[in-house]
């Protein structure tokens, strides 16, 4: 497309966006939803399968209680009502990575419904309505080989791996979110971030977007102020927090350019492209499959005992928002400082770094400074920048022990991010430790004095400030590994100043 997109601030001045998010979470249960096969990621294709998750003739599903429990806990954490009685339903459509050619899901009787999640954006609390939380099964994965693009068109063979088939999947659907204006992309990102944190605090999933255990579809529409909501599109393949924000923004810009030109938005599924940051159309919803939902006759209804639900509610862990408030107090941060920590996605990283022995101030300095800069440059999430909290704490320990100065520590950190090893290993292997041997330093100082007689004379005559030039020379010969303060003292002592 060669259309020039309008400027974002112009778009939000003319149109009001409405967004909505559907999130799929693979639960971290030990076994699959309907059988005893293990759920762990990886493994040779089709090694974690049995007659049930392969959908062989005659096999039957039996619901995994741990998955039902996890779903109810998610519902409770999202302030939902829990159904007293509900059923699974079959969603019928043909696809080779779906062994039975129907997906066991939930239709008009979700396990959890009518909740909300509060998220903070620019210090403001935005309440996101939760429409439903339901339980279903994941599909297998199809790999198209032989084609130029790895896509189905032009492929000579399609290979299916059913290891993922039948892994419990929870779908969390928000109500439409109007009224966020220019902040819509950030609200979307803040919601998914908060949801991820809630899910992690519950321990129900490893919520790794890059491995697909947390997957997000983003609905976006635009309308003129005061007018009815516009036609929405559903953007799939949004696989990182950053992409959630980018996808909303990109879709707002695209829709605005269509509307500006007098066009109409087509209700459709679109695919987000990480590389270009824009979306392209998928299948049109107007010709959507009729899924022929009906209650799953192979499974009995779920009727959670209210006493059990009450027990689960009472045993919920401290949720991230409250947890963060406690951390802010413990770390002694202002609201503004805490907000910058949040914006950087650094709360848990700093918390873990502090737990590994660093002071809150030092931990914050590394994560918000050097590492955030790097993450921005390379376009990755801070957590994926390449350094772990334990490594950062170890690095700070070396600084505190006087073995590294600030500049050297940054060099070591580069090595850590590059995967060269632990901070101590890198310091040793690259010979970066601060030179504290005064004998070696004295030789370097004498050499600098001899090489710069004019400056030495100035210092001798009392112009102590000139010492800086000699310090620089010594630091150069010691490749920055000397402690600048020690060098300065040695120079002044040598020249009797």
């Amino acid at each position, binding site marked *: 497309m060669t259309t020039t997109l309008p400027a974002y601030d112009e778009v939000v001045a003319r149109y009001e966006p409405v967004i909505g998010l559907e999130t799929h979470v693979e639960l971290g249960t030990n076994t699959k939803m309907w059988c005893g096969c293990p759920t762990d990621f990886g493994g040779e294709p089709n090694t974690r399968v049995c*007659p049930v998750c*392969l*959908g*062989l*003739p*005659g*096999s*039957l*599903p*039996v*619901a995994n209680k741990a998955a039902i429990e996890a779903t109810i806990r998610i519902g409770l954490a999202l302030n939902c009502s829990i159904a007293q009685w509900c059923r699974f339903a*079959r969603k*019928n459509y*043909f696809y*080779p990575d779906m*062994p*039975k*050619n*129907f997906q066991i899901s939930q239709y008009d009787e979700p396990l959890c419904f009518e909740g909300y999640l509060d998220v903070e954006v620019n210090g403001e609390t935005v309440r996101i309505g939760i429409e439903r939380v339901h339980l279903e099964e994941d599909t297998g994965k199809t790999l198209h080989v032989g084609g130029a693009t790895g896509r189905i068109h032009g492929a*000579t063979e*399609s290979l*299916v791996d059913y290891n993922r088939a039948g892994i419990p999947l929870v779908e969390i659907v928000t109500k439409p979110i109007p009224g966020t204006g220019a902040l819509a992309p950030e609200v979307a990102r803040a919601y998914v971030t908060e949801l991820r944190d809630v899910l992690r605090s519950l321990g129900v999933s490893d919520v790794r977007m890059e491995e697909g255990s947390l997957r997000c579809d983003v609905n976006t529409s635009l309308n003129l102020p005061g007018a009815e909501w516009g036609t929405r599109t559903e953007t799939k393949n949004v696989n990182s927090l950053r992409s959630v924000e980018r996808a909303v923004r990109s879709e707002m810009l695209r829709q605005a350019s269509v509307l500006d030109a007098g066009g109409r938005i087509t209700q459709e599924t679109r695919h987000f492209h990480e590389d270009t940051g824009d979306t392209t159309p998928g299948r049109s919803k107007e010709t959507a499959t*009729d899924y*022929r*939902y*009906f209650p799953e*006759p*192979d*499974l*009995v209804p779920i009727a959670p005992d209210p006493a059990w639900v009450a027990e689960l509610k009472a045993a919920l862990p401290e949720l991230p928002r409250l947890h963060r408030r406690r951390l802010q107090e413990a770390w002694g941060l202002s609201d503004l400082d805490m907000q910058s920590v949040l914006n950087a996605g650094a709360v848990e990283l700093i918390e873990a770094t502090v737990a590994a022995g660093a002071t809150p101030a030092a931990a914050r300095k590394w994560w918000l400074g050097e590492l955030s800069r790097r993450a921005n440059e390379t376009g990755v999430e801070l957590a994926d920048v390449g350094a772990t909290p334990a490594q950062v704490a170890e690095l700070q320990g070396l600084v505190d022990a006087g073995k590294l100065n600030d500049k050297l520590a940054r060099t070591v950190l580069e090595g850590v991010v590059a995967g060269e090893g632990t901070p101590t290993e890198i310091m040793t292997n690259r010979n970066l430790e601060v030179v504290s041997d005064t004998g070696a330093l004295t030789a370097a100082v004498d050499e600098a004095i001899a090489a710069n007689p004019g400056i030495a004379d100035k210092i001798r005559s009392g112009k102590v400030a000139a010492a800086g030039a000699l310090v620089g020379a010594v630091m150069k010969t010691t490749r920055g590994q000397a402690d600048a303060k020690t060098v300065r003292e040695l120079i002044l002592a040598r020249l009797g100043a």
Partner: protein
Amino acid sequence: MTDLTKLTAVEIAGLVASGETSAVEVTQAHLDRIAAVDGRVNAFLHVDTEGALAAAREVDTRRAAGAELGPLAGVPVAVKDVLTTKGVPTTVGSKILEGWRPPYDSTIVQRLRAAGTVMLGKTNMDEFAMGSSTEYSAYGPSRNPWDTDRIPGGSGGGSAAALAAYEAPLAIGSDTGGSIRQPGAVTGTVGAKPTYGGTSRYGLVAFSSSLDTPGPCARTVLDAALLHEAIGGHDPRDSTSIAAPVPDVVAAAKLGATGDLTGVRLGIVTEFGGEGAEPGVMAAFNEAVDTLTKLGAEIVEISCPNFGYALPAYYLIAPSECSSNLARFDGVRFGLRVGDDGNRSLEEVMSLTREAGFGPEVKRRIMIGTYALSSGYYDAYYGQAQKVRTLITRDFTAAFERVDALISPTTPFVAFPLGARTSDPYQMYLADLFTIPTNLYGGPGISVPCGLADGLPVGLQVMAPTMADDRMYRVAAALESAVGTLTPPVL
């Protein structure tokens, strides 16, 4: 020497236990019988000679070692080809599964092995259990040993024919709308549909999940009860399986065999009389009612006003579920694959496979079910049928407040000639008119021989409340004690 194939299961087990004969001898006798007559009966789709003899040898070895044998140890059994058998072909009577050897045993088959029975092979059936004559089998129809130009009933006609032809003393069937009871009736054998959830569906290739019920077939009521006891009971791999002990059906059959039904109240369903059934069938049924009265039963007439809607409700619910259950037969993971020449799309291969692999009746039901579940029609068809199902359940519940069990003819007509009803599906569907209400309700039903009409067997159906399977065995055994078992002309 005794002809081992003419004995009941109880007699065979006794001879094996006492050492008067061996399980291998019994098995060989039945294998010989199959070899001699099955060319004319076509009861079996697959005979597992080696597996059967190995199982028999194991029973003999265990007996020799002094192990305690169960009440059916060493008794041969024929298994309807709807149940998965590990390593043994399982076709469901369809071309789409031709040659498929399942990697796992169904729960029923596991329990048969655990009971020391000897599986002879897999029996013929209407494709995916859809039919009442075995004429919809992709492998040719089975024939009724009473008259080989007539149908043996269906869908489990192979199992019933195997019993009537003395090819096996016991058989397993599955009953979705009458597929155990109607073949039992037209072959003069006993067929029982347990309470839904009383026998495990794990490994039963699904036709209609909310109706399918595996169950026992035999030549006597007591044999059927013993087989019921062996295969019944809770299975954690079937979540619709009932977590309660199997009613004591064996004790009930023995009690019934004393011929005393004093204090038992039986209801005749008034809606099942009249023009729906052949006069010969009604005559045999009425005579059986007199017999039951003489045995001490109190007979009352009971109206079940919604039973008239059972057939149309069934022909929405069963096809709807089947349209979804049969979606997995797509050529991707098992069974037939057609058109995979490297040029066609996956969708085309799936479509060609299903086109070639399914027969006309299966396709008809998939299409009806797909339509009934589709958006905009669901409420009018599937939703409405479920409401009718609730009304039928209420009819049963109300009836069982007044009587212990309900009785009716099992099927409106005796075995009809091959080809007589294949051109009009509705005429075929009518064969299950009296058996379908029980499936919609989920209760147990049994067919027991009650006499002959024009030289062909007629069955009487006893229907009991859910989880009261013992009641129907008592009534059936009492009738059997008075009428006797029907002996088909030996082929």
